[in-house]
């Protein structure tokens, strides 16, 4: 930081207004970070006291800087996932002070900035914790279970080419909007990480809801719900107890009504759908 105030008054934050320090000041935080050598290691929390950072840094940039310091001392950097760093790829996955993606609502940890923290604050950084998301190293987890759930049924079975004109089937705007609300899921897994039961219902519900609101997705509505839930169960996620913690931490603020829709589709599929022999996993 250039020690230069931006030259305007302090903008007030409309979202949960963190009373941030003026941006020219540096700050220090005391970090407690989960270190784990590999999937077989037990892992432990390691303290990194007095890490200097600027309030203008993103949370991940603060870790970048810490990693630079660690490497300059000849130590191994802390492994963590990130890619787009603009809140849409869903790669970043840190539990900060016991909340996935940290204290700011509707914000991925890559878009969280240090001005959301106090000078001298103790910050706990842990990976997503769930049996279905095994830790691979430090803060990196394996979220392949999500891909397998989608592969089981989270799609519309159309092949490339031969599709009708885009305007052949009108979709009411309200339905398209609801589909889009659910489709904005970034598949980060914060819902699982936050759920006291490590359940994946918000993720699965979001996909079921996205496709059930579009006529193109309705042909497979029942089969989809069954296939995805069966895979979800097999992956070792917990059950939904309607804590609604998932909704509260979802960086895209996907509502729990998608879970209600999943519940409804799965029930109706279980009670009414005729099962055929060629019904196993995979496509259609």
């Amino acid at each position, binding site marked *: 930081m250039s020690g230069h105030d931006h030259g305007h008054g302090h903008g007030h934050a409309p979202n949960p207004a963190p009373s941030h320090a003026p941006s020219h000041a540096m700050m220090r935080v005391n970090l407690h970070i989960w270190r784990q050598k590999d999937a077989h290691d037990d892992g432990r929390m390691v303290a990194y006291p007095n890490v200097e950072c600027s309030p203008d840094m993103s949370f991940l940039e603060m870790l970048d800087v810490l990693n630079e310091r660690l*490497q300059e001392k000849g130590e191994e950097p802390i492994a963590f996932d990130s890619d787009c760093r603009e809140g849409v*790829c869903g790669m970043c996955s840190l539990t900060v002070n016991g909340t996935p993606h940290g204290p700011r609502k509707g914000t991925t940890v890559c878009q969280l900035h240090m001005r959301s923290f106090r000078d001298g604050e103790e910050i706990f950084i842990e990976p997503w914790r769930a049996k279905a998301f095994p830790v691979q190293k430090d803060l990196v987890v394996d979220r392949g279970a999500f891909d397998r759930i989608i592969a089981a049924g989270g799609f519309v079975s159309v092949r490339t080419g031969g599709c009708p004109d*885009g305007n052949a089937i*009108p979709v009411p705007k309200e339905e*398209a909007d609801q589909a889009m609300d659910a489709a904005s899921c970034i598949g980060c897994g914060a819902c699982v990480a936050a759920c006291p039961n490590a359940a994946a219902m918000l993720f699965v519900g979001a996909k079921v809801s996205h496709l059930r609101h579009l006529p193109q997705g309705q042909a497979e509505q029942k089969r989809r719900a069954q296939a995805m839930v069966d895979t979800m169960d097999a992956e070792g996620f917990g059950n939904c107890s309607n804590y609604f913690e998932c909704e509260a931490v979802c960086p895209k603020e996907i509502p729990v009504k998608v879970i209600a829709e999943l519940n409804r589709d799965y029930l109706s599929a279980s009670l009414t759908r005729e099962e055929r022999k060629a019904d196993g996993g995979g496509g259609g």
Partner: protein
Amino acid sequence: MILDGKCPTGPIETRWERCKAELKLVNPANKRKYKVIVVGTGLAGASAAATLAELGYQVDAFCFQDSPRRAHSIAAQGGINAAKNYQNDGDSVWRLFYDTVKGGDFRARESNVHRLAECSRNIIDQCVAQGVPFAREYGGLLDNRSFGGAQVSRTFYARGQTGQQLLIGAYQALARMIGLRKVTMFPRTEMLDVVVVNGVARGIVVRDLISGKVSTHAADAVVLATGGYGNVFFLSTNAKGCNVTATWRAHKKGAFFANPCYTQIHPTCIPVSGDHQSKLTLMSESLRNDGRIWVPKTKGDARSPDQIPEDERDYYLERRYPSYGNLAPRDISSRSAKYACDEGRGVGPGGLGVYLDFADAIKRLGEATIRERYGNLFDMYERITGENPYQVPMRIYPAVHYTMGGLWVDYHLMSNLPGLFVLGEANFSDHGANRLGASALMQGLADGYFVIPYTIGHFFASTKQEKVTTDHPEFKKAEAEVTARMNRLLSINGKRTVDSFHKELGKLMWDKVGMARDRAGLQETLQKIPAIREEFWKNVFVPGSGEALNQALEKAGRVADFLEFAELLAADALHREESCGGHFRTEYQTEDGEAVRNDQEFCYVGAWEWKGDGKAAELHKEPLKYEFVHLATRSYK
């Protein structure tokens, strides 16, 4: 060598149809005997992998992220163009073709661009059928908007997340094929080399990023869809993981690299806030519809913007381009910001920013209207900067955003290396020297869904190849080379981190090969890069081992490739003595600062051949012929 793009001849409207009619086919029963490797799972890679698997080919797909859904196509905000003419406003395939050729500053192939415009219509149908939740009108039909100064409304969109929705559509199609075991997916697996057997690309060398294990995969064709090289500048709007490694490795194995100097700068990004900055965030250009861009008239004016009276502000775009004003094209808008900052009139930390002021728009339309139009962008800006743009002007600065250059491919999207196909941003083919807004998504999907499925079949049907396995000596050799290079990186044990080299390279490239380039600066860069590279190989510190998840090692390999590639980019920029699209040479401009193209000497694709370490790359030219759109000069006055 004069390169032949193998473009069909005859009327442009029927070229692709005729080409398809003449392509050889693979018997359906035989398709499963062919294996295709697809590297990268963005729009181009995922759509190609899914479609090829649907046709019956065996597909192995690779991505370095933890899931194919994370590819950087996901970050595209604006939309996707398609010549549907749903708005009845005079759009057509021809007009989209014309706009794209002109927008590319006459440095793209006419045949490719026309095919792109034709395929654009199928893409929308395909995506709708997949369940992509495009924006709709109340009547239930698809909505369109006008984008990037286009005179027709042809952009389809899904809120501000069009790239995400299209990618998820392609990802779901891919996931379906994975579920059916038609595609074998290798996530967290990075491609580190191409294996060439008897002059044909027959496989790749990869590293499993979790276990660290290096292995090889053999196939009948290799498809690279690995995106662009914007991260050579360190700071760009690209994802952190975007890299040039796959295309650069292919280049070193014989594939030509075309037009690397064509890099696109986006004018409305959030400025750098300090040395810690790890990437830049783009905000939709639509902000320029209502925001006014200005800087103080006097140098080093440190007053807060509300203290600067109206007559001491310079609304430089409105002043210099009265008819387009704040909506001047991306390159002009970007360069003007750079000049203002170079004059010492920039604002914010380090003086690298200009104001984008909404005060007048809020006064005129009310805060509620502005919130409705740009609320999510304002929130994002506030999240990142901690400033409230409803009260103080936004600060913006240009950033690298897209790269038009890439591996050279013919009309079939095959590189000069037989069996190696290149799709999406990784190839050079459709955007010329400058890409129009909402065209990147279109190209990625056109290549993957509607071009490669035809042309790869023709390749299989028309070339007789014996089967190779990974036991072939070329595979063993390539694997040994990759392992040796990795071990070399791990054993240097120097003093500097990988990022410090990447930042040093990035700063040099941004300063000298960024928005505006000149001969002296480029020559200086060409001298400095080898020095940085030499120091890198002597003094980099890569901790940990190769047999485990090691993010520093991953980065080291990528930065090592950027350090080689950067030299080619600068050399290409130096050789191209004209200003066109994303390539601006300060020597070639009018008195008003407009780009001056040199069609006499440079109306060609510049494709570079690797000649070995320490040797200059050799330039091959593919002349560009404009039979349907006449060469003309852009003017935005």
